[in-house]
C-alpha cells in the first residue's frame, strides 16, 4: 500500500508540474461540481418524494386545516367544504359543509331546531357522512338537527362555548351535548367557570398554514413524530378524584352554566354520556364508569333541568344482542377509539326515543323529574330483551 501511495503521489506531482498546477484545481472543481450535482439530486428527489407522499396522504390520512371560529360557537372549525380522508381509523372520505362542520343533510330552511355539540365523536370523520348521529336524527325526526361537533371539544370546551353557540344558531327545541366522561375535573370546571379554560389554537395563517394546505404529508409526519416522542412517556399520574361537597358544588355550578343559556333561549339541554366500551377476559361487557361520579352527574343534571341520557345500557345491549361494540373499526383495536356506525345508530335511536317522549310529555317539569327518576340506572329497571318493554317505555317508566 505504501509503495502504491508513493507511486501515485509521484505521478501526481509529475502531472502537476507538467500542467503547471492546473490539474489540481480542475480536479477540485470537478469534485465540487460532483458534490453540487449530488446535493441537487438529493434535494430534487426529496421535494418530489414529499409531493408524492402528499398525493398519497390526501387519500390515506388528511384531517384538513382548521381555522378560528369567529363566532365562538366552537374554538375552531374546518375550512369551508374542507375535504378529509381517514384510512387509519375506519375508511372515510368526507367533505365538510359551507360552515366547516360535518353535515351532509340538506336543511329545509334556515332554522335550526336541534343543535348537536360534542367532540370528535360527534364530528364523526371516521364514518360515512350519512351514518353519523346528526344525519340519522335528521332522517328520523321532523326537526332539523345541525351538528357542530368537532375534534378536541370535550364537555369543558363545549360548555365554555355554549352561550356563543346558542347565540349563533338559536336552536328552537334542543341542544344536545355529548360527553365521554362523567368523572370531571374540579380544576377544569373551575377554569370554565372563571373563563380561563384554554382555547384550542388554530394555525390559520403564515407558513404553517401554507405548509398544511400544500403538503398534507407534513401534517401526518408531524403527528407521527409527536406520537413517537410521547410513546415512552408515561401519562402523568392522575390525582384520585374525591367526590366531596366541593366537587358537587363545582359540578352543579358547571352544569348550571351549561343549562342557563339554553333555557334562556327556550330550548332544552340534553347531555348524553357515551361511555368507553370494553369486554373483560370472560367476554362480558365491562362498565368501567365510576358509579359514584355518574350518580352525582345525574343528580346535578336533574337539579339544573338537564335531561341526562346514559348510553351504558344501550351499548351493552348492542354487544349482548349483536356482538358489536360501539367503538372501534376493522383497522383498529376492538372497542377502542372513535364510535363506529353501530354506536352512532344506537345513540341516534336512543335520542329519538328521548326527544319523542319528551315532546309527548310536553314541557311539564314533573314529567322531566319522573323521566330522570325512572331513567336512573341504580333502580335496576327491567329493561331490554325479554322484559316485554320497548326501550322508550323502559327509559320513561311507562308500564
Amino acid at each position, binding site marked *: 500500500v505504501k509503495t502504491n501511495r508513493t507511486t501515485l503521489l509521484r505521478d501526481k506531482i509529475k502531472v502537476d508540474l507538467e500542467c503547471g498546477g492546473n490539474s489540481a484545481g480542475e480536479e477540485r472543481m470537478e469534485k465540487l461540481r460532483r458534490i453540487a450535482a449530488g446535493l441537487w*439530486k*438529493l434535494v*430534487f*428527489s*426529496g421535494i*418530489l*418524494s*414529499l409531493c*408524492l*407522499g402528499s398525493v*398519497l*396522504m390526501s387519500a*390515506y*390520512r388528511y384531517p384538513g386545516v382548521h381555522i378560528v371560529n369567529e363566532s365562538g360557537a366552537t374554538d375552531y372549525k374546518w375550512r369551508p367544504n374542507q375535504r378529509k380522508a381517514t384510512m387509519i381509523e375506519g375508511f372515510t372520505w368526507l367533505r365538510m359543509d359551507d360552515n366547516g362542520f360535518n353535515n351532509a343533510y340538506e336543511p329545509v330552511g334556515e332554522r335550526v331546531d336541534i343543535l348537536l355539540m360534542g367532540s370528535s365523536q360527534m364530528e364523526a370523520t371516521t364514518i360515512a357522512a350519512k351514518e353519523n348521529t346528526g344525519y340519522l336524527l335528521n332522517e328520523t325526526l321532523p326537526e332539523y338537527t345541525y351538528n357542530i361537533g368537532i375534534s378536541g371539544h370535550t364537555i369543558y370546551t363545549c360548555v365554555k362555548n355554549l352561550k356563543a353557540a346558542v347565540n349563533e344558531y338559536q336552536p328552537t327545541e334542543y341542544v344536545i351535548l355529548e360527553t365521554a366522561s362523567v368523572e370531571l375535573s374540579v380544576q377544569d370546571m373551575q377554569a370554565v367557570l372563571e373563563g380561563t379554560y384554554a382555547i384550542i389554537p388554530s394555525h390559520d395563517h403564515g407558513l404553517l398554514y401554507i405548509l398544511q394546505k400544500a403538503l398534507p*404529508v407534513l401534517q*401526518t*409526519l408531524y403527528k*407521527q*413524530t409527536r*406520537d*413517537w416522542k410521547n*410513546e415512552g412517556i408515561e401519562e402523568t399520574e392522575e390525582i384520585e378524584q374525591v367526590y366531596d361537597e366541593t366537587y358537587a358544588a363545582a359540578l352543579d355550578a358547571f352544569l348550571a352554566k351549561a343549562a342557563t343559556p339554553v333555557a334562556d333561549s327556550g330550548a332544552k339541554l340534553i347531555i348524553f354520556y357515551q361511555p368507553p366500551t370494553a*369486554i*373483560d*377476559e*370472560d*367476554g362480558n361487557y365491562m362498565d368501567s364508569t365510576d358509579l359514584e361520579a355518574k350518580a352525582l352527574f345525574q343528580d346535578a343534571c336533574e337539579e339544573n333541568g338537564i335531561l341526562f341520557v346514559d348510553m351504558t345500557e344501550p351499548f351493552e345491549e348492542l354487544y349482548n344482542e349483536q*356482538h*358489536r*361494540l360501539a367503538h372501534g373499526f*376493522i*383497522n*383498529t*383495536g*376492538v372497542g377502542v377509539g372513535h364510535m363506529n356506525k353501530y354506536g352512532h345508530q344506537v345513540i341516534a335511536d336512543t335520542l329519538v326515543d328521548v326527544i319523542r317522549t319528551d315532546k309527548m310529555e310536553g314541557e311539564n317539569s314533573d314529567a322531566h323529574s319522573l323521566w330522570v327518576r325512572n331513567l336512573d340506572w341504580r333502580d335496576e329497571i327491567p329493561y331490554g330483551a325479554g322484559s316485554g318493554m320497548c326501550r322508550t317505555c323502559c327509559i320513561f317508566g311507562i308500564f
Partner: protein
Amino acid sequence: MVLAVGCVALVAFLGYFKYMNFFADSFCRLLGRDTVTWNIILPVGISFYTFCAIAYLIDVYRGEYPAERNFWYVALYISFFPKLTAGPIARGKDFFPQVRAYRGIKWNAVHDGVQILVIGLFKKMVLADHLGVFVDDVFFCPSAYNTGTVLLAAVSYSLQIYFDFSGYSDMAIGISKILGFDLAPNFNLPYLAANVSDFWKRWHISLSSWFQDYLYIPLGGSRRGETRTYINLMLVMLCSGLWHGAGWTFVVWGFCYGILGCINRAVGKIDRGNRWKFLRIVLTFGIVTLLWTIFRADSMKKAAQFLKALFSIHTGISQPYTWSFFAMAVLVAGSIAAYVKSKRAGQNRIQGFYPIVDLSKCWGQIAFFTFTGLTIIMGYYGDTAFIYGNF
C-alpha cells in the same frame, strides 16, 4: 475442564435469571406448596449472548479457530449492540475475521445497510405492531369472537411474529452493515417451508444451526441409530422450546415440534419431489400457525381456551382486521418476487432477498425516500416491544 466450567457457568447464569422462578414454581406446585416468586430482573438478550459465548468456547475447544487474545474483540463479539437484544446468534468464525480486517465505514455498505434497516423498520412498525393490536385483543378473550375472527387472529400471529423477528434481524443486519460488519441472514421465507424440518432451516436460522452444531451433533446426531436420533430430535426441540421462554406453553410447543420432527424424519424418506408441494406448504403453514397459538398464549389454560374457540363454530364479535390482509398481501408479494428471482437465477431453492435500489440514481432516491416516509406515516407508535426481545 475449562470448557465444562465455562459452559456450566454460562448455563447457570441463564438458568438463574431466566428459569429460577419457573422451576421453583413448578416444583412448589408438584409438592402442593404455595408458589414462591423471586424478584429477578431478566437481563435483556441474555439467551442470545449466552449462546454466543457458549459457541465461542466450544469452537475454540474444537480448534475451529484459535482463542482470541484481544479481550476487546471478544467483548465486541459477545455484546455487539445491533444483535444484542434478539440476535442473530453470530459465530466467532464469521465475526472475528471481520473485526481483525476492519476498515471503517464504507459508502457501499452504508448504501445497502440503510435500506435493509428501513425494510426492517417497515416489517416491525407497519406490519408486526399493527397486527399485534388485533392479536392481543383476540388472545385476551378468544371466546368473545366468532370462529372466523379467531382463525384470522391465529394467522395474524404467525405473520406478526415473523415480521417482528425478521424485522429486528433486518435492522440488526442493516445497522451492522452500516458499521462495516456482515451478519448472516436469519430468515429465508420460512412460511414457504414444505415440512417442519424445512421450516426450522428457514426460521431463526442462527438458532437452529446453533442447536444443530452444539447440541444435536454432540448428542450423537443421527449417527447412533434410529431410536437415539429420535430421542436427540426430541431433546433438541424441547431445549429449543425452553430457550424461548420459561413456561409450560414453550415446553409443550417444543415437545410438539419434537414429535413433528420425528414424524417428518420417519415419513421423510419417501421422495415426493415437487408433487403436491403447494398443499404441503399450506399444511406446514397450518401446523406452524396452530403451534404458534400455544407459543403465544400466556398459559396452557389460555392456549386451551384459544384452541377451543378456534375449533368450535360459534358466534361473537366479527373483526375482519384489515392489517392482517395487508400483511398477507405483502408476504405473498414478497414470496412471489423471491420465487421469480430464484427461478431466473436458476436456483432450485427459493431464496429471500432485499430489494435494494440504486441510491446514486434519482429514481432510487425517490423510491427510498417515499418508502421511508410511508414507513414513518403508517407505523404504529403504541407500546410495543420486540417479541424475541423477551427471550
